[in-house]
């Protein structure tokens, strides 16, 4: 099934350039709900797939953008390794390219790092139809600007990602989860208190008045942290974290708009109506609220962060608006990569 479609993708981009036709880049289509709708010719990257290089002792994997995340996870699992940022899939067809373009990270984010933290290098096609390679397969590389990390989370608006190299991590030797009942205020306090101690925590979540903690590491370390943190053992631990990550948990059911608030972890509970779940030690907060979008954004900004309308709602503005000077810089950088504005126009912001 491995296939190198680089030449085809390049030709498609060049063709689109001559026709001045905007492109809607897609992988497995699992994250099309995220961001704004894009009008454009579909550019399908899913066929461009295959693991190009995997060196477990170098802690590096390189794969084509269309490679399914499931395939990557399986290959890593076989060698007792994993993606440190524990990305959400949002569907079996999720591809590596789409995951990196959306820059999404899962439960481990606050403790191991985000998608961009694990990106070591990338091949991409820019808006001049050129195939470029930045970064590489080594852990440290400061030659040239860090374009690979800039592309991560840019929602495909700067170029077509064709290949990605990621740092990978060994599976922790042992892992278990604990749960305790508490209020949201106590949850925020406890999560932040634990984070200020050297404990082997790899995930935290507050949902439905219960606070979940996952411990990962050497067996002895996990055992002693368990005594420190207390609570009951979660019997279906992997399922719980997967349900949160994939948004299959009951919290995510129903039609109320789903907001993602990214705040300083110790920020107090936000004064907005609706159910709230916390992850990442308090730094990521999910909110089911019908509050008016400007109000949600105002509250998030006042707490020192920002808000994304993740699913639902009828606002066309999905990501947090940018202040003027920063927006101008975004436009110039967009221009630098995609002078004709053909890649996913408007996917992030209406302005570019």
């Amino acid at each position: 099934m491995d296939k190198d479609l680089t030449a085809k993708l390049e030709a498609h981009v060049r063709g689109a350039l001559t026709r001045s036709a905007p492109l809607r880049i897609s992988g497995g289509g699992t994250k099309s709900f995220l961001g704004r709708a894009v009008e454009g010719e579909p550019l399908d990257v899913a066929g461009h797939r295959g693991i190009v290089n995997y060196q477990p002792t170098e802690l590096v994997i390189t794969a084509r953008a269309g490679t399914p995340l499931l395939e990557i996870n399986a290959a890593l699992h076989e060698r007792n390794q994993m993606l440190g940022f524990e990305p959400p899939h949002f569907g079996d067809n999720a591809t590596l390219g789409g995951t990196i373009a959306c820059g999404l990270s899962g439960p481990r984010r606050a403790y191991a790092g985000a998608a961009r933290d694990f990106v070591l290098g990338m091949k991409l096609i820019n808006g001049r139809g050129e195939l470029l390679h930045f970064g590489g397969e080594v852990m440290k590389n400061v030659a040239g600007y860090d374009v690979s990390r800039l592309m991560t989370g840019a929602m495909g608006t700067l170029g077509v990602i064709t290949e990605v190299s990621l740092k990978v991590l060994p599976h922790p030797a042992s892992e278990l989860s604990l749960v305790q009942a508490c209020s949201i205020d106590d949850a925020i306090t406890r999560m932040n208190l634990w984070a200020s101690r050297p404990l082997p925590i790899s995930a935290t979540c507050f949902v439905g008045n219960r606070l979940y903690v996952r411990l990962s590491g050497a067996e002895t370390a996990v055992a002693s942290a368990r005594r420190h943190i207390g609570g009951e053992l979660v019997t279906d631990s992997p399922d719980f974290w997967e349900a949160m990550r994939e948004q299959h948990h009951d919290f995510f059911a129903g039609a109320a708009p789903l907001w993602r608030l990214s705040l300083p972890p110790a920020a107090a509970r936000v004064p907005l109506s609706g159910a709230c779940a916390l992850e990442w030690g308090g730094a990521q907060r999910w909110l089911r609220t019908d509050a008016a979008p400007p109000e949600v954004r105002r509250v998030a900004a006042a707490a020192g962060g920002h808000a994304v309308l993740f699913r639902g709602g009828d606002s066309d503005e999905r990501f947090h608006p940018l202040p003027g000077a920063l927006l101008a810089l975004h436009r110039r950088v967009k221009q630098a990569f995609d002078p004709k504005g053909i890649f996913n126009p408007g996917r992030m912001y209406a302005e570019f």
Partner: protein
Amino acid sequence: MSSEGQSKAEHGYTGELAVLLTALRAILPSDSVLWEEEDLRPYECDGLSAYRRLPLIVVLPDTIDQVQAVMRLCHQRKVPVVARGAGTGLSGGALPHSQGVLLSLAKFKSIIDIDARNRTARVQPGVRNLAISQAAAPLGLYYAPDPSSQIACTIGGNVAENSGGVHCLKYGLTVHNILQLQIISADGELLTLGGAALDSPGYDFLALFTGSEGMLGIIVEVTVKLLPLPERAQVVLAAFDDVVKAGGAVGEIIAAGIIPAGLEMMDKLAIRAAEDFVHAGYPLEAEAILLCEVDGTNEEVSEHILKIHDIMQNCGAIEVRTAKDEQERALFWKGRKAAFPAVGRLAPDYYCMDGTIPRQHLPEVLRRIGELSREYDLPVANVFHAGDGNLHPLILYDANKPGELQRTEEFGGKILELCVAVGGTITGEHGVGMEKIDQMCTQFQPDELRQFHAVKDAFDPAGILNPGKAVPTLHRCAEFGAMHVHQGRVPFPELDRF
């Protein structure tokens, strides 16, 4: 007439100097504007002292408003601006521009705020790396990236170079440990990149800016993440009679699922030099030593130390020692952290290289460096961040011997090209600066360099920030290519040769 006057006249800049001086003095207190040669001298180079140049003027602002005013003025008059932290950089990044302003951030040295609850520190760019950890220590917190120069280098310089340290294998580089930057753009605007949360809306300019070597803006404030001090840290010293065996042990430790906090290697010459200098108790008969540190909870450390001990032995170590107490641990590290100055005592000058390679190629690369060392008749000591394949070959030379510096640079260039050839990079943490500008032509294709220039233009259309550094012009590469035909292939065949 002073030589200063002459050199300024040479640049045809005497008139401009007077105008600039007047304008700068209207913005800054007069003792914050330096222009006489004796005052400029301390700024003529950074840690790469082979490259020296006097700036036209040095300014030492101490408020953000002043930095903005300086930038607006320089932008309007198209005067080059080079930012400078502590000047410990090793690639000539802070080398002044002879017709420009050197903007020192030395006066920005206050720690604005430490937020214990959110575990962050907001600091000015001139704060020394180590000072942050010292200030956070009473709260049981620290700032993880620890370049060997940490007692001197500034956090602004760290961000500009994306600096690493011996602990970045586990805790990451600067880019992984910062949350927010306040920058002044080339035209004097104050911008916030990143934020107080773990991510921020829009493009990841925080990452793009990290490691951009003063080319995209002036950093005037940095918010860093702080981590809890580990309960315990312990280091194992293993000696090998063969560098290849030591390299093998590195791979085995990683394969065992352990990510050490630090994993460093030194070769025989470096061991000798360090031992003479700080008496760390290193085994002098070894061809290579590994320093492997693990940290975490008490139990975790004990468990890992046992495993590492076994691995080292199985990989053929002739001696394995665990630091018996905190004092010995500090001593083992002292030798490593002082390796550069220690090696510096072996010869009048040394030249520090900074390539990174996939670790599996270590034996081959070391063998080839040895051959080149004989070919160029220049000794090399190897010190490196073995865990992440970041090599620091230190070439020993004497700048006063005619032709030796040139031979050294050529040798260094060969090492970097070798790193690229095995799939690595010309710089792991010290940056391109002035020094590796030609090797950028080996690492990148013209289209990629053009993309870098486009990024630069987006931030600094007038090209006043650190001109001539970090990214070579295509013409420079064409010239360089004419001298060095890479792997039998002429780079940039489409460009005119001259």
